[in-house]
C-alpha cells in the first residue's frame, strides 16, 4: 500500500527529522492512527540499523577466536617419543611449561580471590539452572479430562499456574498424594513465589521415598537460591549429589558454582 517513491522519500525524511515541523507532526499523527504505516516506518528504521552494523561483525570475529582458543587450550598435551639432544631440549621446555602453568594458576587464584564480580550471584545460578519440570510419560497415561490431577499437570505445562494450584487444592482435601504438593510447589516456584514453593516441597518430601522426592529436593534447592538462602540450598544439593540419582550430577555442579 505504501510502495511509492514519494512515500518512501517522506518516511526517510521523517526518520532523519528532515520534514518541516508541521509536516513532521502531521505525519506522526498519521503513524499513530495507522498500524500499517507504523509498521512501515519501523521497517525503514530497522533496515538502516540492520544493514550497516559493523560492531556485530567484530563481536562474531572476537568470539570465533575465543572459541578456537578455548578448544586449543582444552586439548591434551601431545606425548610423542623423544630421543638424544632433543630430549634435553624438551625437558627444558617442559620445565618452562610447568613453571608457566604454576604461574598461571597462581595468577588465577589471586584474580578469583580479588574479583567478586566473577562469582555467581543467586540470580545467575537460578536463571542458569531452573527449567520447568518435564513430565514423565507414565504420569499422564489417563485422560486429563477425567482425572483432575492430570488436568492440573496439563495446566502447569501450559503455564496456567493459578488454575493448576486451584485444582490441586481441591484434590488435597480428598486424598493425600505427594504429586499434589509437588506440582503445587512447582507452580508457586514458576510464579516466583519461592517461599510458598518451599512449604509445598517440604510437604512432598514428608512422604516416604516417592517418584517426586528427588525432583522436589532439586526444586526446593532452587527455591532457596531464589530466597538467597545458600546455606539451605547447599545442604539439600549435597544430599542430592550423594544420592546418585537423576539430579546428582546437576546438584554437584550447582553446589560447586555456589561455593
Amino acid at each position: 500500500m505504501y510502495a511509492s517513491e514519494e512515500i518512501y522519500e517522506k518516511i526517510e525524511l521523517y526518520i532523519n527529522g528532515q520534514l518541516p515541523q508541521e509536516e513532521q507532526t502531521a505525519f506522526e499523527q498519521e503513524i499513530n492512527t495507522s498500524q500499517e504505516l507504523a509498521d512501515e516506518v519501523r521497517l525503514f528504521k530497522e533496515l538502516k540499523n540492520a544493514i550497516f552494523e559493523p560492531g556485530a561483525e567484530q563481536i562474531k570475529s572476537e568470539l570465533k577466536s575465543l572459541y578456537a582458543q578455548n578448544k586449543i587450550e582444552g586439548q591434551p598435551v601431545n606425548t610423542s617419543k623423544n630421543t638424544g639432544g632433543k630430549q634435553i631440549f624438551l625437558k627444558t621446555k617442559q620445565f618452562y611449561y610447568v613453571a608457566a602453568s604454576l604461574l598461571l594458576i597462581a595468577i588465577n587464584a589471586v584474580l578469583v580471590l580479588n574479583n567478586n564480580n566473577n562469582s555467581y550471584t543467586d540470580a545467575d545460578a537460578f536463571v542458569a539452572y531452573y527449567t520447568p519440570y518435564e513430565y514423565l510419560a507414565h504420569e499422564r497415561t489417563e485422560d486429563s479430562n477425567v482425572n483432575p490431577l492430570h488436568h492440573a499437570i496439563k495446566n502447569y505445562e501450559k503455564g496456567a499456574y493459578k488454575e493448576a494450584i486451584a485444582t490441586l487444592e481441591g484434590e488435597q482435601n480428598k486424598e493425600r498424594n505427594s504429586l499434589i504438593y509437588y506440582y503445587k510447589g512447582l507452580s508457586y516456584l514458576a510464579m516466583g513465589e519461592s517461599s510458598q514453593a518451599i512449604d509445598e516441597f517440604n510437604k512432598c518430601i514428608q512422604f516416604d521415598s516417592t517418584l517426586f522426592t528427588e525432583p522436589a529436593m532439586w526444586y526446593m534447592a532452587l527455591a532457596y537460591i531464589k530466597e538467597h538462602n545458600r546455606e539451605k540450598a547447599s545442604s539439600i544439593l549435597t544430599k542430592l549429589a550423594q544420592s546418585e540419582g537423576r539430579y546428582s550430577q546437576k546438584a554437584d555442579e550447582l553446589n560447586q558454582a555456589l561455593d
Partner: protein
Amino acid sequence: MEFTDEQLLNGLAKGDNRCVKYMYDTTFQLVVQFIKGNRGTLEDAEDIFQEALIVLYRKQNSQPIQLESKLRTYLIAVCKYIWYNRVRSRQYMDTIENKVDYGDEPEIIEGVEQSDRFTLYKKYFNELSDKCREILDLHFQDKSMAEITDLLGFTSIGYARKRKFQCKEKLIQAIKADVHYQKLKSRSVKIKN
C-alpha cells in the same frame, strides 16, 4: 580489567573486543552448563552465546537496555530464551512453556525478535544484485544522492534516486512476503499492546 554493566553495554554496542572477552570470561561457562544440561552441545552453546551477544548489540543500539539486575543474569536469560525457542522448533519440548524466569521478560522477547527481524533483513539484502547492494549500502550510511551518483558513476541524481527506490522496493517486498516476518511483526504488536 573491570567494567561496570553500563560500560559493558556501551562497549558491546560498538563491538569492543575487550567487552566481548569480558562477557565471555564471566558468563560463557554458565551458558555451556545450561545448554549441556538441556540436550545441547558445546557447539550449540557457542552458537547461542554469539546470538545472544548480537541481540544485546542490536537492542542497545536501537534503544538502551534498562537492566533490572546484573548484565550477566540478563545475558543468561537471553541465551535461555533463544535456546528454548530453538529446542521447541526441533520439536523436543513443544509442550513446555517458554519461560525466561527473569524480570525483564517482555524486553528480552522483544530484543530477540528484533534481532530475528534484523537477520531476516540481512538475508534478503544479500540476495539483491551487487549494484542494488552497493546503492543501499551507501544509502544506509547516510550518503547523499549526489554522493551516491558520483561514487557509483550514475548519469544523473534523478536516475540514482530511481534505482535506489527500485532496490529498496525489491528488498521491502521480499521481506514482507516472508511468512516468518509476518509472524514476528504480529507478535511484536501483541507485546506492545
